[in-house]
Each structure stands twice: as structure tokens, then as C-alpha cells.
């Protein structure tokens, strides 16, 4: 297990919004839901590679801005009937800060 890296403060992400983190493993989208849960996904839609960070966040789901694929923030899987999965990254909240674990 690699270490947790501090990314930003929760307040730096708008509710129902996201931020992009540049990493050695490509761009990672960090999402904040309306009830202040945080999630991390590879910023690439399994459909045609659209940047998920730019989508609209609703519930625990983000809708890809390119063709409207709905991706579950919890596991990165496309909502049926669409198929595909975006890679998930572990993200947690601690003391008002958002932490990311690169695996």
C-alpha cells in the first residue's frame, strides 16, 4: 500500500463539483457530492475517453460531458445499460482535507 497524499481542502471543491489532480498515473478526477462524500476516478470515460471531471455530478453519479454515459462514483462502473468501468482511486476526508492514495 502506498501512502496517502494530501490533495486540497474539501472547500476547494464545489459541492456537486470536482477537481483534476495531475499524477504520474494520468489525470485523476476528485469528486465531491452534495453530502460531502469524496471519490476519485481516472479522468477518462470508459466509452470514448471523455474527461469525467467535467461532467455534472448528481447523487453518487457523474454524467460524462461527451456522450452522457453515467458513471458511478463509488466503483467507476457505467450505469446499465451502458457498459465499462473507469479506474477507481482511494480518496478520503480527514480534518477538512482531501487525501488520495495512488496504487
Amino acid at each position: 500500500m502506498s501512502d496517502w497524499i494530501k490533495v486540497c481542502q474539501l472547500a476547494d471543491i464545489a459541492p456537486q463539483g470536482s477537481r483534476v489532480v495531475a499524477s504520474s498515473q494520468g489525470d485523476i478526477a476528485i469528486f465531491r457530492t452534495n453530502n460531502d462524500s469524496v471519490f476519485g476516478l481516472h479522468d477518462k470515460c470508459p466509452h470514448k475517453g471523455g474527461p469525467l471531471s467535467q461532467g455534472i455530478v448528481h447523487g453518487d453519479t457523474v454524467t460524462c460531458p461527451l456522450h452522457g454515459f453515467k458513471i458511478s462514483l463509488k466503483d467507476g462502473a457505467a450505469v446499465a445499460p451502458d457498459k465499462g468501468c473507469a479506474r477507481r482511486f482511494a480518496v478520503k476526508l480527514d480534518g477538512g482535507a482531501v487525501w488520495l492514495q495512488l496504487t
Partner: protein
Amino acid sequence: MRKQKLVVVGNGMAGMRAVEELLKLAPDLYDITVFGAEPHGNYNRILLSPVLAGEMTINDIILNPLQWYADNQIGLYTGKTIIRIDRTARKVIASDGTEEEYDRLLLATGSTPFILPIPGRDLPGVISYRDIKDTDEMIATAATHKHAVVIGGGLLGLEAANGLKLRGMDVTVVHLMPWLMERQLDKTAADMLKTSLEARGLKFLLEKQTEALIRGESGRVCALRFKPAPGYDPGDGLEIPADLVVMAAGIRPNTALAESAKIYCNRGIVVNDTMQTYDPRIYAVGECVAHRGIAYGLVAPLFEQAKVCANHLANFGIARYTGSVLSTKLKVTGIDLFSAGNFMGGDGTDEIVLNDPSGGVYKKLVVKNDTLVGAVLYGDTADGAWYFQLVKDGQNIHEIRDHLMFGQNHVGDVGHAGKTLAATMADDAQVCGCNGVCKGDIVKAIKSQGLFTLDDVRKHTKASSSCGSCTGLVEQILASTVGGAYTPSESKSKPMCGCTDHAHGVVRQAIREQHLLTIPETMQYLEWKTPGGCASCRPALNYYLISTWPGEARDDPQSRFINERAHANIQKDGTYSVVPRMWGGLTTPAELRTIADVAEKYEVPTVKMTGGARVDLLGIKKEDLPKVWADLGAAGMVSGHAYGKSIRTVKTCVGAEHCRFGTQRSMAMGVKLERMLFGMWSPHKVKLAVSGCPRNCAEAGIKDIGVIGVDAGYELYVAGNGGIKTEVAQFLCKVTNDEEVMEYSGAFLQLYREEGFYLERTCHYVARVGLDHVKAAVVNDPAKRRELHERLLFALQDYEDPWQAAVAKPAMRREYEVIKIKEVAAEVMT
């Protein structure tokens, strides 16, 4: 608390649809037990015809496999017939003695085929056409016997006949009436259908009454004898050979069980608008029901009933079933036929008819008091769904009466090679040009996934989910695949999205009347079903709020599509394009120099002219956007809103400033209009054009507002469109000076802003409300016009260029910043 017990008698399409709808609304309210007389899970009865025709198998048409019942903790008894209801003890009793208690009971006992009371009806080889067993028997008989006779030339009879013919039998259809499908077709259409079926080898005997079925030596039926008609010629013969007789002479609601329990029945189990029987604990849906005196035999109404019933079983108590307008499609591959409503016409109606027998096309529209009340289409049913919607909505067709016959799509639809006949299309013909979906893909998805609605098809195949120009075609394919189960979407009451049951109009009204100011407030007031809405309803709600309450409701960037949030257009690779505004299409050397500098400085890979006469800088990284805007802003340039549901451009011709033909100063007029409208959000994008003379070089005829200079002033045109569907703008009025152009245009756009539904272009908006409605507010009522114009100006006052705002405000700039992390050491928490 003990869960309540719901018992469902009948495992068919209506009963299980009600259970499915109930599980969506209240998954944990009931312990559910289902009794089915057939030994299967729930299957799609509608698709028995394709099974018979050899186009599908039984496995393809299973809707709910046994696993589904288990997954949802539904107790299922197959092959068990309920014979008694004990209403006092509140239990049902099956023929084998099984008992089940209920708190609420749902009767979905369906119907029974009507068996003619004639001698020989019990002979082996005489069957009806209702279930899997009948279908299996027909398939087996076709392999061993030759002559089939179908009694009944209605929908079901013809589908049976077609299937048996395809299975290699020699098929005769015997029909009592003078033409086929008399309940769905007029004589002309029916005759065309008959000719076409005859060409496939089917035989028809019309106006023949069957007297008896005759037993052969094997004990099986061998022939069918007719009653001699008046004036009968003995040389004609009264008997035809028949190894198989299929009775398809109608259905009777299955009310025996209800009647034995003394539940009031009258041509069906009588229910009220909540699908409740005379016993308040007992509900009923489907073909067994009589609602307002009508028993429905097609699936679409049954699904509507199921939805209402589920709403009440879930204790929501708000839905009502008020009856259905019926439409029919015949599921015989290669034959396009559609009928809806009152297609026979009669007193007080006009008939608009197109009849081309050689071309194989017949269309009849029945019009009463400027509304469409019914339609029959044969050969070309492309507009069936549209006509059906007009009938259901009762929309006034006065203005489109002259071209109603030519359908909704008679001009300008692109993307599917102009094809409009679904049934004749090959499986590999492309239907949806945006997503590359062929007819075969759609049919396969409908059949294998059990899809019934356009939305389902869009979700599963993506067909018609992008630009939507092939919607009519997809609806037709859906309709011809599922036949009577097809429910066209109703424009007026169609819910905004899956998050709510409310239509756009209801939501707009509530926001205005209840003075709702935020999305959470609106969702709470209208009882949204999802906590945070979805990517479809949130942008709509955000628009409705800010357009209804300018200055009061706050814009919610997180509820805007990325382009409007980032003020640039996202491209397929995640980069953005930037289009600076060029008022009226005018620019200066200094502006062009700045644009050139920006393009070089940020290594913009593509620079191109847009259709709206300005420059597009494509391929800019998101984090560079604020820097690009700062440079452009320094030269006085602002956002072109090329990304928004907003004012886009005002295109102009050179006009009287330079042109030798110009009658009006179109460039100056265009600039004034564009400055007035700067920052205007709208239901969809808005484009204007101003031409200085009727030569119309600015192409004002296909704009949301087209202004055409004439010697005495300007002509104003509205609701044109040059996109997916080319729509020529309609003449609104003549005005005399620039101020009037501003006031009338502003008033029209404000009316659209206040009444339009989100993502509805002006052409669709005007088609919905009618040009007369627009004229009444904008042309004929000066006070109202001024008020509208003033409300527009009020909403647009103090609008700030979003680009410079993003440059200046750190909180907004965050949107564009990428977070850089140190991946080793630094801030590591243990």
C-alpha cells in the same frame, strides 16, 4: 411492523407491469404473492406472433424469468388457478386447495378467446391464439399438416395467418365482415392490406359465417362449413378443408372469478379511475377490466393502468387513469400500417385523403373542429407517432392544416439518407447517423431486452439519443416490432426525466406561482424522486429559476453543462474552443491582430471561421482559458457565448452601409440587436440575422429571428431553424424603424424565455403554442409587448462578461486550475 400482503391473481403483462411499477415506488411495502395459471414466468404475449412466424423463440420473449421473482422476494405459483375469493376472510383459494391471505388483492386475470358456439368447436385441431401452448401447437401442426383456416380477420387473426403461412401451411382467413380489421381500418386501407397479403399467398373469404367444423376420419377436424348466404349459388361449395382451425374472433374479459366473489362486473370487472373495484381492498388491471365502460385489448392502455394502480397500491394516491386513445400497428413484417382514434370519420368531420394505389400508399386524416381526431396510414407510417400525439393532445391544427398530410418530417431531416419507411428498410440500413445504429441493432435490442418505449430504446442502443432527427423512424421501428404494446410519448404530460413525474410545463408553473428560488426548494416542493436530480433535469431547473426570477434566483454553475460552466466548448479530446464575440460579425485589424497573437502564444492548433461569422480557436487547454481571455479582454473582446443555451450571434449582410442594393443599414441594426441581447440565457441557443434587402444574404429565413430590410422598414420572421430540421422562419409582422425591431424581437424572445421548455428551439416552441399565440402577445397587444421587452431588459441589466469575471475572481478561477501533487515524501500522513 408486519408487512402488508399483496396477492396478484394473474401472471401476465398487466399484472406484472403493475408489480414492477410498485417495486419502483415502494419496494418494501408488501409481501407479494403471484398466482399464474400458465406454467411459465411472465412473457411478452405481444411477441407470440414473431415466434409463430419463426422470427423469434420463446426464450426471446420472456419478460421476467423465474430468477426475477426470487430476486424480488415475490412468491410465485405457476400452473395454479385461483377458483375462489373469500372476501370476508380476505383470502384466495386455488383449485388444488392452496390458500393465500391478502391485505390487498390485484386481479389481472386477462381475457379468454371467444370460441364460436358451433358444432365441432371441441375437436382436436381447433384452437385459439392466446398463449405459448397455442403457439406451440400451431408450430407443431404446421410441420405435419397442410390446411389452416383462421376464423377472424382482425389484428390477431392476420398475425396468426401470416405466421402459419411462413411455417409452410396453406392458409385461408375467414371473416364475417366486409373488410379486414374493420375495428382498426377503413375499407380502402383494408383492401390494400388484403391485396398485399394475397400477394404473399394468403387467401381470404369475406362476409362468410362459419356454421360448423367437421370431424375427419382421424377424429381431428378436417373441414369447415359455411352458412349459405342469401342468394347463395350452390356451385360455389360450402366447405373448405381445414387440418387446423384457429379461432381469433375476439376476446372476452375473464370475469368469472370476480363475479363468483360478487364483485361488480359489467363487460369486465368494473373499476374507477384509481383501478379500484367495488371492493376497496381489491384492484384490477388489464384485459379483465371495464373502465368507464371500455375493456381494452391492446397493451399500451394496460401499461397505463398498471402505472396508476401501482401508484395507489404504494399509497401515493395521486395518479388517475382516464382512459386511452388507441392506436394500432400490425406486426406483419414488411407491411406498414397504422391507425388511431376515430378513423372512420362521420358527422361534423372532414377527411383529408391521399390515395396512391399503385404506389402502395394511403393516408386518411380525420379532422373535427380544427383538431385531428383520427388517422389511418397504409404504406407510409412515418408520421404515425406524430399524428397519434396530435390526436391525444387535442392540439389545434388550424395553422398546419394545409400541410398536415405531408407529415412532420417533410422537409430537412438529415442523417438517415431521407429514409422514412421503417418496415422496408434492410437490417443493415443506418437509422441513426449520429451514433451509427442500424435497423437490425434496434430490432435486436427491442426483442432481446424487452423494450417498450422510445426512452428504453435510446438508453440501450443510443439511436435517436443525440440530435434526435431519426426519432420518428426509431418510433416506427419500435411500433412495428412490439405492435400494440407500443406507447408513444405524450408531449404534454411527458415527465421531465426519471427524477420526477412532472412535465416541463408543470414545473415552470410551480416555480412561478410558488416563487421558488433554488433547485433544492423546487425539488422539495415538487417531491423529486432523486436527491440531487440528474444531468438532464438540473440544467433545466437552473434555467427555469434564473429566467423566471432574474436578480433573485442564483445561478448554480454545478447544474450547468460543462460548456456553460467553463464558458468554452469542450472538444472530443477534452480541450476547449474559444470564440470571441464579433458584434454583428464586424471586427477590426486590432482585434484580428490580438486573435493572431493569442493563437500563436498558446499554440492553438486550429483556427477557423464559424457559421456565425466569427473566429473559432480550437484545441486550447482548460488551464490556459483564463490566460487566453485575459489577452483577448485587454483588446476589448468578450465572450461569444458560442457554448451556451443563449444568444449566439446576429449575422448580418453588408447592407445599405456599402451594398448598392441595400435598403436598410443591416450591420448597424445587427450590432444593436446583439448588444441588447448580450448575456441572454434561453431554453436553447438563439441565432438572429439581419439582411439589408430581400436578397437576404444573411440567410435570415432560417434563424430564430430573421430581420429583412425593405424600403419601408423591416419584415420580421420568427422560428426558423437551419439545423437538424430545416425550418423556414414564419412571417411575424412588418415594422418601420430600428426601435421597433428591438422591441418586437425582444418581446418575442422574452415570451420564448418565459414559456419555452428547456432544450426547445424557437421552431419547436412556436409549433407547440402556435404562431397566433405569439402574435397575440407580441404584435396585437402593444402594452404586453412593451412589458415583455422591459422584462427582458431587466433580466439582462448589469450582465458581466463571464470571461473577465473568471479572470478577476479567484473563486471562479478554481474551475480552471489543475491540482499538482508531490507523489513522494512531502505531506504524507501515516
